[in-house]
């Protein structure tokens, strides 16, 4: 339990009431308010690290690194849209709002994504000219709050993402605390400055999948059937949600697992609602396969993706692409130890900082404070993000080639084994060294 070597070994920390738990009880007693924070789930969950690839050997032969081609290009929105989106790497940037993030951060995300030919996504609060200008492929989120939602921006978008939920808070609405509501943010959202903005958890003008089908038709009509329409859900009853999303007419489905990041949500929500990303993917793929729609309706997976291995594992389980939020912010400088002193001043530390809601981000990313925001140079940030995206792509390609695949999407569950019984059951791949998939009959 204890990481502190100076603690007397005779003192034993409770596994149930550890120091974090006790600190939270004291915090609740002090304030009377639940803890609101950013970032994603911090508890340990079955995750991609619990899976391994079976490289090629005698029974499969590998492809030569650097020389033999391994395709990473993916086309999204082939079902109904006249103009599907072609991305050069299957790693996209997830929706993060202007308001939660500074204008510079949004611009940096757009620049980085455009450099490697992938898409970026708006968020709650609408589209800023900076991000439209810097994003060669921009997905416009259509959220319950409809803050800043306007048909001109809708028509400017390369795709529309109808957000039903987020992995960090399936069933919950959004929150942007007063500290971050500057004049510009307030004006974009038609709300008074400085108030806490609660975003609704349900869409105001439709309920249920039958209504959603009509809503999607409306969005298609307004955009003359040009652009793909995504549906984003937080991972919960993923099998059923994906079936209903296909039925409602989605071109692309985004499934965000419970590790997914957020700008501001109750801690109790982040840690206790939803299912891990690992568990959600096979459910989504099964639903698509049963409907004969796997690869026809593309699946984007997000929630805790950090490296090329995670990307390749998602693809092997059947995703067409992934989305990243937290990792992109880290690439821009979030939680960087170079700001250690500043983190200490606000009672946090590099590597632990999650108070995105407070708007005091020393790295200048999750803030609206002009002085802090200046710390992030959008050009430099964009370059860093592009580098990071290139590494993810190269890593995923390396693994795919080792498995003998000339396209990331040729990776398959058969290439994977699990390290734990839990991950084997969730990912539906055998426990390493066995042919046992818990829950499946032979």
């Amino acid at each position: 339990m204890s990481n502190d070597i100076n603690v007397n070994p005779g003192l034993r920390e409770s596994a149930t009431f550890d120091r974090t738990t006790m600190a939270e009880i004291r915090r609740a007693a002090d304030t009377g308010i639940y803890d609101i924070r950013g970032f994603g789930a911090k508890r340990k969950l079955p995750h991609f690290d619990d899976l391994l690839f079976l490289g090629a050997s005698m029974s499969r032969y590998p492809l030569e690194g650097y020389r033999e081609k391994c395709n990473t290009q993916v086309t999204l929105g082939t079902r109904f849209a006249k103009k599907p989106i072609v991305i050069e790497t299957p790693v996209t940037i997830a929706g993060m709002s202007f308001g939660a993030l500074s204008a510079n951060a949004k611009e940096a995300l757009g620049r980085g994504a455009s450099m490697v030919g992938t898409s970026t996504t708006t968020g709650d609060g609408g589209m800023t000219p900076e991000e439209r200008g810097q994003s060669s492929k921009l997905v416009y989120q259509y959220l319950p709050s409809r803050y800043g939602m306007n048909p001109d921006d809708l028509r400017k978008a390369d795709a529309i993402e109808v957000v039903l939920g987020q992995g960090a808070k399936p069933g919950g609405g959004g929150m942007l605390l007063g500290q971050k509501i500057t004049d510009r943010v307030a004006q974009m959202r038609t709300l008074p400055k400085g108030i806490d903005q609660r975003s609704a958890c349900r869409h105001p003008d439709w309920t249920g999948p039958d209504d959603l089908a009509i809503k999607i038709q409306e969005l298609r009509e307004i955009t003359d059937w040009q652009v793909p329409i995504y549906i984003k859900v937080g991972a919960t009853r993923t099998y059923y949600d994906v079936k209903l999303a296909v039925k409602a007419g989605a071109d692309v489905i985004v499934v965000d697992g419970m590790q997914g990041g957020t700008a501001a949500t109750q801690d109790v929500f982040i840690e206790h609602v939803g299912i891990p990303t690992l568990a959600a993917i096979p459910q989504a793929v099964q639903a698509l396969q049963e409907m004969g729609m796997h690869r026809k309706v593309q699946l984007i997976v997000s929630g805790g993706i950090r490296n090329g291995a995670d990307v390749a594992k998602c693809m092997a389980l059947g995703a067409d692409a992934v989305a990243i939020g937290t990792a992109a912010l880290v690439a821009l400088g979030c939680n960087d130890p170079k700001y250690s002193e500043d983190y200490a001043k606000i009672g946090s530390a590099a590597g632990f900082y999650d108070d995105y809601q407070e708007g005091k981000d020393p790295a200048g990313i999750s803030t609206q404070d002009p002085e802090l925001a200046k710390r992030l140079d959008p050009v430099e940030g964009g370059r860093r993000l592009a580098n990071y995206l290139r590494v993810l792509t190269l890593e995923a390609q390396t693994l795919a080639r080792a498995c003998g695949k000339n396209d990331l999407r040729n990776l398959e569950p058969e290439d994977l084994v699990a390290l734990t019984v839990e991950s084997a059951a969730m990912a539906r791949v055998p426990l390493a060294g066995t042919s046992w998939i818990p829950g499946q009959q032979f």
Partner: protein
Amino acid sequence: MKTIDLAESSIRELNQALHDQAVECTEREWEVLNPKGQHNIACGLDQNLSVDIHGHAGYFCAGMNKKAHVVIHGNAGQGVAENMMSGTVRVKGDASQAAGATAHGGLLVIEGNAGARCGISMKGVDIVVKGSIGHMSCFMGQSGNLVVCGDAGDALGDSMYEVHIYVKGTVKSLGADCIEKEMRPEHIEELTELLNRAGLDEDPASFKRYGSARQLYNFKVDNAGAY
């Protein structure tokens, strides 16, 4: 005047023809026949057109309207004029729930009654209802005006922000943080203008005004029960 008969043309053909007017306007007056409750009629318009729909419309009629003047000579389904930006939409009959939802501008007139959640999350639109409105109307309403010449259902203005609500009849109950407010001369003036624009002959002095108590604008632990 151009007539499109939905017994012969599809919604897609109708909307494309109307959208084409935003690029090059060749005809300002449009008439739609046989709507028969179909959804998404005349949505996404972006031109100073006048569109008369003869019959009942389904969901999201005139959704996201900009500049156009749309009249529904019948009833309208869910989400009529949702997210309207400008222009006017007039419903001669009744409107279903979420009329004018999230609309940012323009004028929505409903000559009959409106269902639940009329003006939900409204963001600057003016809505004038000659009849009554259903429950949870103006939920999280942000900006604009909501005028009701009849009665309002349960939980009017729940968690609302800066909308001005005027009701002539009774209000079944007020939602969290919504209170009755004083009718000052500037409100009489505002209401007179709204009624005039809607073409309704009502006495502004007979209305009561409701708005936000602004107690939920920033989280206070003492208000925990209201959240």
